[in-house]
């Protein structure tokens, strides 16, 4: 986001600032009619409200501190415009009473004008406002997450079930929300040796790009066909195979792909983790056979029984 603040932004801020001063001086030349005046405190409330709304509209994920900072900055810019315009008007008329000239700028018309311009001047600076930390993504609902009994609706259709949760089940639902302890079987699976194999797996570039949203696909992407391959290190892929989901970070993928094929995401996604899923269908058939090699069988005790002929299940 900070890349959005360029030399052009600074130039436009300067132009807006000068234009604001000139316009405020011009507006202050007119004698305002008294019935249109608004009291000072009301104007301050109005100013803070407008500034706060503008900051939130520009960056809806701004932090509370950033929001207050934005309001203060806009008000400060408005004060600078009003002061500069007051000084300018006093100098223009050869008036020695600068204070009176600045007070004149606090009247309704020049002040509203300065407020409007202060928003324009501040707009490029919005990129520097501190943001809220990104919310953790909700985990996809997994097996075992359902704590209630689900019954079909009155029409007998199970597509929209009614969820009945008893008191006891509420406790179990709450317990299920706690971080799950690894079960013995999960632990057993995780301690199974994972082949550590050097090397890469070669995937067709168009198939990988098909997993990306259009906004991050670069101009040179269409230069590649299925015969062009991207090499992805096995040490990135192999540890994920036991989870039946393989993904790589967009930033890593950009390094492995030829230049210009993908571009960095802009806006709120910039700098955030961006996992790119790789379909198993694409990855697994291209793996070296030794990756999927299993260790020596370790059958449970029940599988080690000797079955006498008389026990063998009869044909049905």
């Amino acid at each position: 986001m900070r890349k959005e603040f360029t030399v052009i932004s600074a130039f436009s801020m300067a132009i807006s600032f000068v234009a604001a001063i000139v316009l405020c001086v011009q507006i202050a030349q007119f004698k305002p009619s008294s019935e249109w005046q608004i009291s000072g405190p009301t104007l301050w409330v109005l100013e803070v409200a407008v500034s706060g709304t503008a900051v939130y509209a520009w960056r809806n994920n701004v932090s509370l501190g950033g929001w207050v900072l934005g309001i203060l900055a806009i008000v400060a810019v408005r004060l600078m415009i009003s002061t500069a315009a007051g000084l300018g008007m006093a100098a223009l008329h050869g008036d020695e009473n600068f204070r009176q000239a600045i007070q004149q700028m606090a009247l309704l018309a020049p002040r509203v004008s300065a407020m409007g311009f202060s928003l324009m001047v501040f707009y490029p600076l919005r990129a520097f406002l501190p943001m809220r930390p990104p919310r953790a993504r909700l985990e996809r609902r997994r097996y075992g997450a359902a704590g209630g009994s689900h019954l079909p609706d009155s029409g007998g259709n199970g597509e929209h079930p009614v969820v009945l949760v008893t008191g006891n089940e509420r406790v179990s639902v709450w317990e299920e929300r706690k971080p799950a302890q690894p079960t013995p079987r999960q632990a057993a699976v995780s301690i199974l040796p994972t082949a550590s194999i050097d090397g890469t797996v070669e995937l067709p570039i168009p198939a990988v790009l098909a997993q990306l949203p259009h906004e991050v696909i670069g101009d040179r992407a269409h230069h590649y066909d299925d015969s062009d391959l991207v090499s992805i290190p096995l040490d990135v892929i192999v540890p994920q195979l036991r989870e039946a989901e393989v993904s790589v970070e967009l930033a890593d993928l950009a390094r492995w792909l030829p230049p210009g094929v993908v571009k960095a995401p802009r806006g709120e996604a910039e700098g955030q983790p961006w996992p790119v899923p790789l379909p198993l269908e694409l990855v697994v058939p291209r793996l070296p056979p030794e990756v999927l090699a299993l260790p020596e069988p370790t059958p449970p005790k029940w599988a080690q029984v000797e079955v006498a002929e008389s026990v063998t299940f009869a044909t049905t």
Partner: protein
Amino acid sequence: MASINYALKEISCKIVYYGPGMCGKTTNLQHIHQHTAPDKRGNMVSLATPGERTLFFDFLPLEAAAIHGFRTKFQLYTVPGQVMYNSTRKLVLRGVDGVIFVCDSQWEKMRENLESFRNLVENLATYGYSLETTPYVVQFNKRDLPRIAPVEYLQYLINPRQVPHFEGIAIEGVGVFEALREICTLVLANLAQKQRVGIV
């Protein structure tokens, strides 16, 4: 757990077909029901939605040959595979003697297979059971479909312990009786062993 009625000379065991939604558990049971002699089976009870999704469970009682003079009965159950019916799955697992874990071989179902397998482990643990003590076999179903994962990857993902596994096309009956026969054998052998050491 298996019950042995010495007065009636009868052994009764509970086999549960477990797996993700739409993987073919009910199809397994339907095939068994259609291809078993009527005098060796009871009526199949199935509670399903209009969309053919198992709502509660399917139940099929089977009677096998007598072993040492004991009539052997197997109660075959399926669980509803959909994520939201976990309470029902837990209930069906109560007193289970053996599990046939049915996997959907399609690539896009790999994650569901894994989550269902982990769910099986969790639900068994609520009764103090585990796959270390409960016999199970794995059936890789839908092998006739395009876009399926190789058995090597299914083994790597679901069955690294390499318990007995079967490739299946339940709708055609391929691998259905093979898996059933294997689990029944293991359950009975396990039962016989427990009886020898005085557990049952």
